[in-house]
Structure formats: C-alpha cells, structure tokens
C-alpha cells in the first residue's frame, strides 16, 4: 500500500454533559495518499465528530490523528496547513464576495498579493465561478456555494481535503457536478476524505470505504470487495405463499448450481448466487413447486452490506 497520509489511532470522543454521548468509540484508520476515501454511515454514526477532530475543531477524549505526520492535537496551527475542510454547513464569509472568499483564504495561508490573485483567478476558472466573482455568497445557489467552498478549501494546496456530507441538500445535477469536481482533485494529488450516508455516492466516488456505525468501524475495504463480501453477485428475493415449505426449499435451493447462499427473510427466502445463464430459471422452477408468489432480483449494494452487518437500513 502507498504512503499513509491520515493516520487515526484509537480515537475516542465522549461529549460531556448530563448525559455523556460516546460519539466516536475507538476508531483506527489509515488513509493512503492519493485516494478518495469514504466514511459511510447513518446519521449520528460519528462521522462529523471524526472529521472535526481530524481538522482540529474538536479535542479527542483519547487517541490521536496525524495528518502528513503532524499531530493535530499537539500542533493544530501547523496541521491546518495540510488540511482543507468543507464542513456540513455553509461557512462562506458573507461579508466578502465570491472572489474575496478565495483571495483572503490564500492570504491567511501566507501567499502574497500577486500569488493570491493568480490562484483566485485560476480556481474561479476551474470551478466555473468566474462570472459570479463579484457576487456575494448569499446570492449563490446551493450547488454553486458548495463548489465555492471546495475551491476555497483547496486554495492553499492542502494535502488532504475533508468533505463532510458534500452532497447533502444538492439537486441531482449539482451533485454530479460536485462528483466531477472531487474526482478532478485526484489529478492534483489531493487526498480526499469524505463522509456520506448516500451509498450511491460512496460507491461511485470512493476508492476505499469504512462503514461506520455507533462510533465504530464495522468493515473497511474497496467498494467492490465490500459488495463481494456479501457472497454472490446476484440476489433473488423469493416471496413464498406458505411458511411450512420453506425449510425443505432452502435445502433444495442450496443444491442448485451457482447458488452460493440461502437465507430466510421476512415472508420468504433470499438466494445469493454467482450470475450464470439459466440460473434464474432454475431457481424459479425449484421454488415454484413450493408455492412461489413473486421474485425480485437485485445486485448486492453497499446497502446490502450495511444491512447484513447491522440488521438495519442505512437510511431511516
């Protein structure tokens, strides 16, 4: 594996107060440089808290985060040089124009006037914001505001860009534009860590994923490997008329060539299988003798992975 750029070790965060909340409960993570890395999990899983700690905005209860070798708790001001952040909410400076949002960000990070102006012009061009340069952030649509936030976050050429729920509240078209923008960052050598609870987004965009729930990482791998872990590339959900025949049917289905797994689901049986010609027909014929009502076919998704690991749906 290539060089590790974000190293999270034994991270814990307990929010104090009358009812303490353990938001992050022992997370270990290595993000390889140059990847787009996803934290996928339902609301309240601890994604934002993890990002807040990694970006020096929250103090961990235990554990450490190193960004490009710099400890974010011991050296927050210096770690920030390697970090770009787009938080969950819009944090554009409403007293400054679109161009000034980027320009002053460059100045905060030590560029002189000429460098900052050049960088601002290039980023406005790259993110197709040039014609709105003199507008104020309040006048931007959600998609444009999000693009400006990304442009500003990478203006100082950070090594890692953190995106917290980048597509929350975006219309489908803006979401795709945002995905393109994020994918283009790969070419600039920027590592991206993003959180999401949209499994399509995680699947489409990320090279590697950690599925996170209740402050813990359940599993970590490439999206393809995660989906393969389900144990088949086709899923047939069979709805059965009566429950009695099920056990016998389960055994007979297991014997069908190509079937890799059979499990009970409410109202029927789920068959996991490797795709091959004639497989669906064989499964349906076998099940038909035992009172098949209906069949739906799907392919394993990250949603399936999540449900198998937690027994819950990703979106509730």
């Amino acid at each position: 594996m290539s060089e590790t750029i974000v190293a999270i070790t034994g991270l814990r965060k307990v929010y104090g107060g009358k009812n303490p909340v353990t938001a992050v409960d022992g997370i270990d993570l290595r993000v390889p440089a140059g990847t787009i890395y996803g934290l996928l999990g339902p609301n309240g899983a601890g994604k934002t808290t993890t990002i807040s700690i990694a970006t020096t905005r929250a103090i961990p209860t235990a554990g450490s985060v190193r960004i490009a070798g710099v400890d974010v708790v011991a050296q927050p001001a210096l770690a920030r040089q390697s970090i770009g952040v787009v938080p969950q909410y819009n944090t554009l400076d409403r007293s400054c124009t679109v161009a000034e949002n980027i320009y002053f960000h460059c100045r905060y990070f030590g560029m002189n006037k000429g460098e900052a102006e050049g960088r601002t012009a290039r980023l406005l061009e790259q993110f197709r914001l040039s014609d709105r340069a003199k507008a104020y952030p309040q006048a931007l649509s959600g998609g444009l505001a999000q693009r400006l936030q990304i442009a500003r976050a990478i203006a100082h050429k950070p090594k890692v860009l953190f995106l917290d729920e980048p597509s929350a509240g975006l219309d489908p078209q803006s979401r795709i534009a945002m995905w393109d923008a994020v994918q283009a960052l790969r070419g600039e050598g920027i590592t991206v860590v993003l959180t999401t609870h949209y499994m399509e987004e995680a699947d489409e965009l990320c090279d590697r994923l950690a599925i996170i729930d209740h402050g813990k990482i359940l599993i970590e791998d490439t999206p393809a490997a995660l989906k393969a872990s389900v144990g088949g590339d086709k899923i047939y959900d069979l709805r059965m008329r009566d429950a009695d025949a099920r056990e016998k049917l389960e055994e007979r289905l297991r014997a069908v060539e190509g079937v890799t797994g059979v499990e009970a689901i409410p109202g029927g049986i789920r068959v996991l299988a490797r795709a091959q010609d004639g497989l669906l027909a064989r499964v349906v014929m076998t099940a038909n003798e035992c009172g098949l009502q209906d069949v739906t076919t799907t392919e394993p998704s990250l949603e399936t992975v999540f449900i198998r690991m937690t027994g819950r749906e990703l979106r509730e």
Partner: protein
Amino acid sequence: MKSEQRWGIYSRAFLGLMRRDLRVLSRELVPFLVRVAMNPLLFLFVFTYVMPHMSGGAKMSPVAGMAAAGGGGGFGTVLLPGLMAVAIMFSGIAAVALPLAQEFGITREIDDRVMCPLPIAAVAMEKIVFSAIQSVIAAALVFPLAYYVPSTPVLAHVSSWWLLIAVLVLASLVAGALGLTIGTSVQPKQIGLIFGVVVVPITFLGCVYYPWAALGHIRWLQWGVLVNPIVYMSEGLRAALTPSMGHMPEALILAMLVFFLVLLTWVGMKGFARRVLS
C-alpha cells in the same frame, strides 16, 4: 520546524485576517463613520448647544455648575473625555460582539478564519486589535465635534502625550476585549439584549457624564462603580485631556486599565475557544 519559520506563518496569517477585516470595514466606511459620530454629536448638540440656549438650561444640568467650579469650560469639558470613552466602548461592542454573534450563528462563517494556520488565541487577539484600531478612530472623531458644536469652548489641554497615548491604546484594547467577552458569552439570539442589559448601564455608571470625584456625596455609588472598566477609560482621558477637572490618580487609572485588559482578554479568549472547539 524552526521557530522563525513558525512565526513567519503566524504573522502572515494574522496580517491576512487584518486585511480581510480592513476590506470589510472599508466597504462600510460611511455607515461606520455615521455610527461612530452620531452619539457624541447628538450629546454635544443637546447638552452643550441646545440646553445653554434654553432659559434656565444651566439649572437643568446640575453638572454644569460643578464643571464651572472645577476649573471652568462648561459641560462640554466634562463631556469630551466621557464621550470619547463611550465612543471607544461602543466600537468594541460594534466591531467584535455584534459580528461575532452573526459569525457564531447558523452559518458559522467564522470557521474559515478559525481554520487558518494560527493558534485560536491569536485569531481572538486579531479581533481585539482590529477593534482597538476602530476605537482609536472613533475617539479621534469626537475631537472635531467637541471643537465645533458646543456654544462654550471646551477647555482641552494635553498635559502629557505619553499619558494620552497610553490611555487611548489601553482603553481601546479593553473595549475590544470587552466586546470579545460579550460576543462569546451571549447566545446569538440574545445579542439584541446586550444594549439594554450591559451597554446602557456601564455607560451611565461609567463616569462619562460626570467626573468620578463628583460622586463624593454618594459614597456607595462611588465605590460601586469601580468595578466598571468604563470608569477608568473616562477618568484616564479626563486626566490626559482636561486635567483641570478633578480625576483619579494617573497610576491607579493605568493599573486598573491593564488589570481589566488582562481579565477581559483571558475571559474572552476562553469563551472564544469554547465556542469554536468542541
């Protein structure tokens, strides 16, 4: 990393924040000047121009008699340092507390500045310093007003420039630190209450419209107002600008301004860190 390198990064970030604030202020220059000038202008107009032209005006203003007794020059002479102190304090509230309320609001637009390569305490410090610059401008604006508006000329006399500069700078920093303390300790929704609950009381009980010595007959009040930092701003400016008027000892004034600066800066920075870190 070498320490010079680190200071280089920090100082460029600090200057970047100052530049940003300067740009924002420059766009609001006219509203800024109007806001700063309105209070002293109206005060001087009503109390040193309108009232003296009314029959019995002097009797309506009890301090006027005392001002005369204290060395002449009329109420304007009492008001000049007081109005400068108010201008300084208002600027601190308007330059730090009110913007902070917005920046900590729903949008959290302060985030990008908090994320610059600078310790968080220094981000708070920048707020205080930039506010102090506005306070000095605000205080300076009171001069021409006090020169042109009153019907009786104001008797101002700078006995020591060093004292004036020290008081002006300290008072301006105290005002910024006060703004930081208020802006970080009050919920954004409640910032509107600040004027009624904090600003008006500390102004009226801040020896702005009367010298501290004039409270001699109300002992409990004379001691009570000592916890109010505005008292030392007004008295300090009184000592530096209108020394003929009775004022507190200069060393005490400077010591108390330093004390309030340290206290309010510490509380304000704590509050700032609490608001931006979780």
